[in-house]
C-alpha cells in the first residue's frame, strides 16, 4: 500500500472514538479489515459508545478473544441477556423469541448440545463421507466447462443444502427452503434479504410449522432415525422443549450447517485465485488439501463475530468491561493478528499449525460441526483437483450485507478443463 492510499483511507483518519466496525457497509465493500488493523494497533479493546446496535466493546486481538471465549462464567451467551449476535433483535425479535444451546450457558447448554453432537462424531462422519463425495461428484460433473456461471448458487449453496437436507432427513425436493430460512435467520432489515422484523418472524414461523410436522411424524417412531430431528425428538434433554427452543435449535443447526461452510467453499475458490502461487503448490502436491482447508477457514472467517454479555465487571486487555456490557469478539480481526499468525493477510496453504485459528471459536461453544465442515471442503477440493485445471474468478464477488455472516451472494467463474 502506498503512502498516498494510506492517507486517503478513512480507516486511518477517523477519530478513534468514532470507529464503529459493526457498520455492515464495511463488510459489503470489504474495508472493515483496515479498521481492525488500526484497532489492533491503537486500541485493541475498543469501546464504541454509539452504533445502530447500541454501545459495545470490540475485542480485536487473538489472545484477548481467547480469554473472553474461554471465560463463559463471566461472558454469557444466554438469550435472556442478549445472545450471541451484536443485534439484540436476533433473539428478541417481537413475537418470536429464540433460544438454542448456542444461546445458553452451562449446564443447560451442555445437556442440549450432547443430544445433537453424535451426528458429527467421528464414527458418523465416516458414514457421511461416502454420501458427500457422491453428491459432490454429481454436482461437479454437471457444471459447464468454459462458460460463465455463479459458483455460489450452483456449487456452494447446492452442496451445503443437500448436506443439510440429509442431516435433517428433510424432504429433498424442498431443500432450498432450508437455504432461505438460513439466510432469513441471520438477516436484518435492509440487508436485501428481509424488509422488516415482522417478515422475518413470519417466515421463521413457517419454518417452525414445517419442522413440527416432521417432528410429529418421527416422535412416535419405535426405532428413532439417525437424523437431527429424531435425535431431538427422542432425547429426554430436548423432547419437551418449549416452542422458542424448538425453533431456536432447528435454526441454529440450519445456520451452523449451511451459511458457514457455504461461504468457506466460495472463499476457497476466491483465495486460490488471489494467491495463484499457492494454487500451483496445491496442484503440485494434492496432499496439501489437508492443511489448505483449515487455512481457508481462517482466511475466510465465515462468521465475523460472536457476542457475549458481561455478567460481572472484568478486565480485558487493560480495560474494565462493566457488568451488563455487550462484548463483541471479532474473530475476523483475531485471525489477522500478526502477533499470533505470521503474514496473516496471506493464504499460505502449508502452515505448520493451520488449525490455530479462531473461526470455530474456542471454549464450550466451539463449533460442534467443525470436522464435518473440514471434511466437506476437503472432498470438494479433492474432486475439483481430479477434474479441472483452474476455476477462474471472473469478477469481484458480491458480498453479503452483514457484520455476522461474512459471505458471498454471487461470484461468477469459468472452469478450465
Amino acid at each position: 500500500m502506498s503512502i498516498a492510499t494510506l492517507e486517503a483511507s478513512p480507516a486511518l483518519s477517523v477519530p478513534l472514538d468514532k470507529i464503529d466496525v459493526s457498520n455492515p457497509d464495511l463488510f459489503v465493500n470489504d474495508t472493515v479489515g483496515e479498521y481492525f488493523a488500526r484497532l489492533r494497533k491503537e486500541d485493541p479493546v475498543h469501546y464504541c459508545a454509539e452504533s445502530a446496535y447500541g454501545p459495545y466493546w470490540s475485542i480485536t486481538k487473538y489472545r484477548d478473544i481467547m480469554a473472553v471465549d474461554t471465560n463463559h462464567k463471566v461472558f454469557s451467551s444466554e438469550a435472556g441477556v442478549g445472545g450471541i449476535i451484536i443485534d439484540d433483535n436476533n433473539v428478541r425479535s417481537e413475537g418470536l423469541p429464540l433460544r438454542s444451546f448456542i444461546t445458553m450457558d452451562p449446564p443447560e447448554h451442555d445437556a442440549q448440545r450432547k443430544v445433537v453432537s453424535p451426528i458429527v462424531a467421528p464414527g458418523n462422519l465416516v458414514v457421511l463421507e461416502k454420501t458427500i463425495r457422491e453428491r459432490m461428484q454429481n454436482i461437479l460433473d454437471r457444471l459447464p466447462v468454459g462458460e460463465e456461471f455463479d459458483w455460489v448458487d450452483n456449487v456452494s449453496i447446492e452442496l451445503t443444502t443437500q448436506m443439510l437436507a440429509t442431516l435433517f432427513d428433510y424432504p429433498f425436493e424442498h431443500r432450498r427452503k432450508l437455504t432461505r430460512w438460513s439466510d432469513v435467520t441471520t438477516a436484518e432489515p435492509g440487508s436485501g434479504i428481509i424488509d422488516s422484523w415482522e417478515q422475518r418472524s413470519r417466515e421463521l414461523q413457517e419454518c417452525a410449522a414445517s419442522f413440527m410436522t416432521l417432528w410429529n411424524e418421527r416422535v412416535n417412531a419405535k426405532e428413532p432415525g439417525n437424523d437431527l430431528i429424531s435425535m431431538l425428538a427422542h432425547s429426554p434433554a430436548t423432547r419437551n422443549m418449549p416452542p422458542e427452543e424448538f425453533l431456536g435449535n432447528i435454526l441454529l443447526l440450519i445456520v451452523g450447517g449451511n451459511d458457514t461452510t457455504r461461504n468457506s467453499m466460495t472463499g476457497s475458490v476466491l483465495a486460490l485465485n488471489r494467491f495463484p502461487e499457492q494454487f500451483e503448490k496445491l496442484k503440485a502436491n494434492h496432499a496439501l488439501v489437508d492443511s489448505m482447508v483449515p487455512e481457508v477457514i481462517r482466511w475466510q472467517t465465515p462468521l465475523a463475530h460472536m457476542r457475549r454479555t458481561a455478567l460481572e465487571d472484568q478486565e480485558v486487555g487493560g480495560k474494565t468491561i462493566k457488568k451488563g456490557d455487550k462484548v463483541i469478539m471479532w474473530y475476523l480481526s483475531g485471525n489477522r493478528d500478526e502477533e499470533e499468525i505470521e503474514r496473516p493477510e496471506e493464504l499460505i496453504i502449508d502452515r505448520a499449525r493451520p488449525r490455530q485459528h479462531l473461526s470455530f471459536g474456542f471454549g464450550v461453544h466451539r463449533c460442534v460441526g467443525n470436522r464435518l465442515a473440514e471434511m466437506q471442503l476437503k472432498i470438494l477440493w479433492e474432486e475439483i483437483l481430479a477434474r479441472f485445471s483452474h476455476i477462474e474468478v471472473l469478477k469481484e464477488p458480491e458480498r453479503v450485507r452483514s457484520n455476522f455472516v461474512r459471505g458471498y451472494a454471487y461470484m461468477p467463474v469459468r472452469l478450465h478443463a
Partner: protein
Amino acid sequence: MPHIKYVEANGTEYAVDAPAGITAMEAAVKNGVPGIDGDCGGVAACATCHVYVDPAWLAKTGPAADGMEKDMLEFAEDVRETSRLACQIKLDDTLDGLVLKLPEKQH
C-alpha cells in the same frame, strides 16, 4: 528429562523424551505423535488433546481439574475416569515413564 510413552488405539507406541516444564500435548505435537492436535495452543479450550492416563499413573497426574478442563471434556468422545487433556499435564521428573493412551479419534 521425563520419558513419555503415547499409545495409539491400535497399539502403536511412540516414545518421547520431553524436557521438563512443557506439557504432554506440546511434547506430542513437537514429536509428531498423531492424534493429538492441540488446536487451541494449550489452554484447555478445544479438547483435541484428549488422552487416557494409564491407571497406574493417575495418582501422579491427578484427575481432570474442575473448570475449563472438565467443562471441555464434557464434549469429547468416549470420556472415562482416566480422561485428561494432555495440555493440562505439565511434565516433570516425577512423571518419568508416564504412559498415555490415545482415543480412537479426536473431535
